[in-house]
């Protein structure tokens, strides 16, 4: 109860009156705000587009805002609102918005089942195939002016393609690539020069010098030359093509320009490729040399630890992707060391392993990331798509990616200084020997190979276990072959659903469906032969009856 100061007696209404007044004011303000907001939504004086994403990394939102402002300047009466939601919450938040019919006009595709699974994608997002074959009007002043929008992106818009639906449901806006980060300051302290390694031999020489430096300065327990955010596999990924692409001529049976795991298995059984081949041995031994420059038991090091080690100048080289670049650059700046970014150095001809190098792995077929879909119930879907056109025009893409320090995706868009080394290099080869045929073999390869690279087991042990697994009738190459056959057969069946939908809707409303899409689906289905080509391949290449070899494997239907 409050006190009436004039009378010195308790007041019956004084305190309550204040409360009531506050309540009324709050109610009135809320009512006004709610009414104004409702009116803005129901009868907007301007077109409002909402774009949601989970990219809260340093600089992304500012970059998006800059792109938005430029777009708004060019399109008066349009307002774009970006909604950054944390990665952890994005899933739940976007699901709720989609179900309640209030989702943003543009959603970054990923994380949530509703944004990744085909059945939800068709329900909530607009198919884009028919819209991306026209030129992007925002490229009118550059040489891409007559190029179909789809082809103006470095990945040919593959990042937005849904294989199961045979349809584009998103527009990618950025690229990702793996690189080697170098602490030049530490390099100079350790080796006397901050010259970056141009070859694999130079790199390993510098690593040895850093080991010596660590020993000299009493840091041998804490300092290592190389750390990796994603284990040694991400480093090996850059060397498999250089060392093994020469096998393509021998192993690429379907002449599609790649060596599929199934083709590697065929070649392995026929001894066209063995683990003892000089080029294969060169690959494994080169990776062992890298493994020797990483910390003991490096397979247990996670992304955060690797970054922390590098940021604290306890490693001179860090292997990670473009998405970490601005964070690492900031850490370098804070810690006061000079940072450089390079591609993985290849052995020179006159160095060990150099004789087995064909050339670098090209990055021409990298898929775009930062994919945005257009919400089906958007009141301004056309305008939302127009904004994506701007975002992926040369200028728009430059604004978005330069400011956010991500690699741009549009052909000719200039990257930021930091991102220049991350631009995909289209030069080089793409085929590689892939000995990890099937998930079960892959599991064994990963575990045993890392043991060898860490020095826990000799190569002969890896080879013994690999042969044991790959020739194991229940989990090896034959099982993986059956698995591929089964997946292929099911893929044909799944395509039948998409075709059935198209054909039924076309019957109901003639001319309403994209005939090109139907033809494409028919062709893709036909050229997978219901999987029977894999049975034939087994009979003729494996020289065995698949029904006999696979008799214990049961098809698993979804």
């Amino acid at each position, binding site marked *: 109860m409050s006190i009436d100061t004039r009378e010195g007696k308790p007041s019956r209404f004084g305190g309550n009156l204040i409360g009531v007044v506050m309540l009324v004011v709050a109610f009135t303000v809320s009512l006004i705000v709610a009414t104004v907001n409702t009116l803005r939504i129901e009868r907007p004086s301007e077109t409002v587009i909402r774009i949601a994403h989970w990219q809260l990394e340093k600089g992304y939102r500012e970059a998006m805002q800059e792109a938005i402002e430029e777009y708004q300047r060019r399109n008066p009466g349009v307002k774009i609102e970006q909604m950054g939601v944390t990665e952890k919450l994005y899933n739940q938040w976007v699901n709720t918005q989609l179900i309640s019919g209030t989702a943003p006009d543009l959603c970054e595709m990923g994380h949530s089942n509703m944004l990744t699974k085909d*059945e939800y994608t*068709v329900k909530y997002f607009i198919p884009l195939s028919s819209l991306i074959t026209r030129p992007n009007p925002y490229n009118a002043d550059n040489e*891409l002016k007559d190029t179909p929008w789809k*082809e103006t992106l*470095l990945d*040919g818009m593959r990042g937005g393609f849904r294989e199961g639906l045979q349809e584009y449901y998103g527009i990618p806006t950025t690229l990702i690539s793996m690189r080697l980060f170098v602490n*030049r*300051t530490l390099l100079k302290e350790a080796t006397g020069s901050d010259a970056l390694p*141009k*070859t694999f031999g130079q790199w390993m020489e510098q690593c040895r010098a850093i080991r010596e430096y660590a020993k000299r300065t009493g840091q041998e327990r804490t300092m290592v030359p190389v750390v990796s955010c994603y284990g040694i596999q991400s480093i090996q990924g850059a060397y498999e093509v250089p060392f093994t692409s020469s096998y393509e001529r021998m192993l690429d049976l379907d*002449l*599609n*320009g*790649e060596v599929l795991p199934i083709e590697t298995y065929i070649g392995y059984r026929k001894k066209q490729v063995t683990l003892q081949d000089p080029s294969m041995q060169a690959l494994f031994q080169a990776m062992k040399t890298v493994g020797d420059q990483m910390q003991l038991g490096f397979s247990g090091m996670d992304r955060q630890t690797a970054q922390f080690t590098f940021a604290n100048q306890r490693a001179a080289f860090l292997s990670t992707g473009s998405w970490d670049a601005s964070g690492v650059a900031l850490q*370098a700046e804070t*810690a*006061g060391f*000079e*940072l*450089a*970014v390079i*591609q993985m*150095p290849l052995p020179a001809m006159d160095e060990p392993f150099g004789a087995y190098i064909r050339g*670098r792995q*090209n990055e*021409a*077929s990298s898929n775009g990331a930062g994919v945005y879909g257009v919400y089906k119930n958007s009141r301004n879907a056309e305008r939302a798509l127009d904004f994506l056109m701007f975002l992926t025009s040369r200028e728009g893409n430059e604004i978005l990616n330069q400011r956010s320090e991500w690699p741009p995706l549009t052909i000719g868009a200039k990257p930021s*200084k*930091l991102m220049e*080394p991350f*631009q995909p*290099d*289209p*030069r080089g*080869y*793409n085929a590689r020997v892939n000995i990890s045929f099937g998930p079960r073999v892959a599991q064994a390869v990963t575990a045993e190979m890392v043991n060898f690279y860490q020095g826990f087991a000799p190569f002969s042990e890896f080879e013994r276990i690999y042969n044991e697994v790959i020739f194991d009738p229940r989990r090896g190459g034959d099982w993986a072959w059956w698995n591929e056959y089964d997946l292929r*057969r099911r893929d*044909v*069946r799944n395509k*039948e*659903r*998409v075709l*059935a*939908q198209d054909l039924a809707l076309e*019957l109901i409303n003639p001319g309403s469906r994209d005939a*090109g899409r139907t*033809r*494409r689906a*028919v*062709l893709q289905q*036909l*050229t997978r*032969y*219901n999987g029977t*080509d894999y049975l*034939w391949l087994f009979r*003729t290449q494996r020289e065995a009856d698949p029904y006999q070899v696979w008799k214990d494997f*049961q*098809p698993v*239907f979804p």
Partner: protein
Amino acid sequence: MQVFALGDGGSVKKLSICLILLSICHTPALASTDDAFAAARQTLVELDWKSAIRLYTPLRDAAKPGSKEWNEATYCLATAYHHVQPPSYDTIQSALNNYQQVIDKASDPRFVARAMMNLGRVYELRDYPEDIVDMDKAREAYEQVVARFPGDPIAGEAALRAASTLVMAFDEPNYEKVKAGVAFLEKWLADHPNEELASVMWQYIGDAYFRPLQDYKNALQAYEKVDKLGWTDQGNQGPWYWRCAQLAERFLDQPEPEIAAKYYAKIIIETPNSGKAYESMQALRRLNKPVPYSPLFAKFDPTAQPTTQEAVTTQPATQRSDR
């Protein structure tokens, strides 16, 4: 009301009242049927087969057999049973029964033709674990479509499907069925110069000649026809371009460097993201042919073997002059 003013007796009044009441009762019903069909169609758009069964069943039951509404409802019901998950013997039987009803009773031949095709699809594909694939029965169904609708575009699709049931046999060592399938399609294309699926058919023929028949000359000729007609899966034809170039350069008794060069150039210009543009440039130089420009390579010297590119560095804050 006007109707009463115009009436000349009790019977007219009663009739008018009946008409008004009827129209009042009937209008919402019509609207509701339209809405129900719209909702049912939406389930197809969303590949929601369970809801399609739920919504189309009463619509089919309420419609007069052979009517427009019945055609749609029965056909879509069949389609929904055909694709609903999990699939079972019962769902597939329901699909077959409904397709058969469409074939027997539908007034629109388009629905009939498609239902006949779909019988073939059911026989051709394994729909549930114990399902038995019956290629002969499937081919029979497709051939019936060709026989009953010879002038309709669906006949071409049925012919292609019929041929594929033979090609899929992969019957080594003589490949009689594969050859029969290819011959059937070639004859079809000769007899139907305006076939809508001609490009798809030639690509399929080319693939069959390539593998399993290993007749590389005919494979390349078939692909050349596709190239003239236009590739169906635009943007993804890179692997076929590479195959054509390899066939022309390495696999023919008489190599065709001009044809090989044409496909290498196409890879660079049309499918630079296929991963083969750099090697195509090398191949063109090897063949002494001009290398076309690609914006993808604008910043890179395609003649240089890439090693470590010039690194870009960031200076620590203390050494930077721009901050």
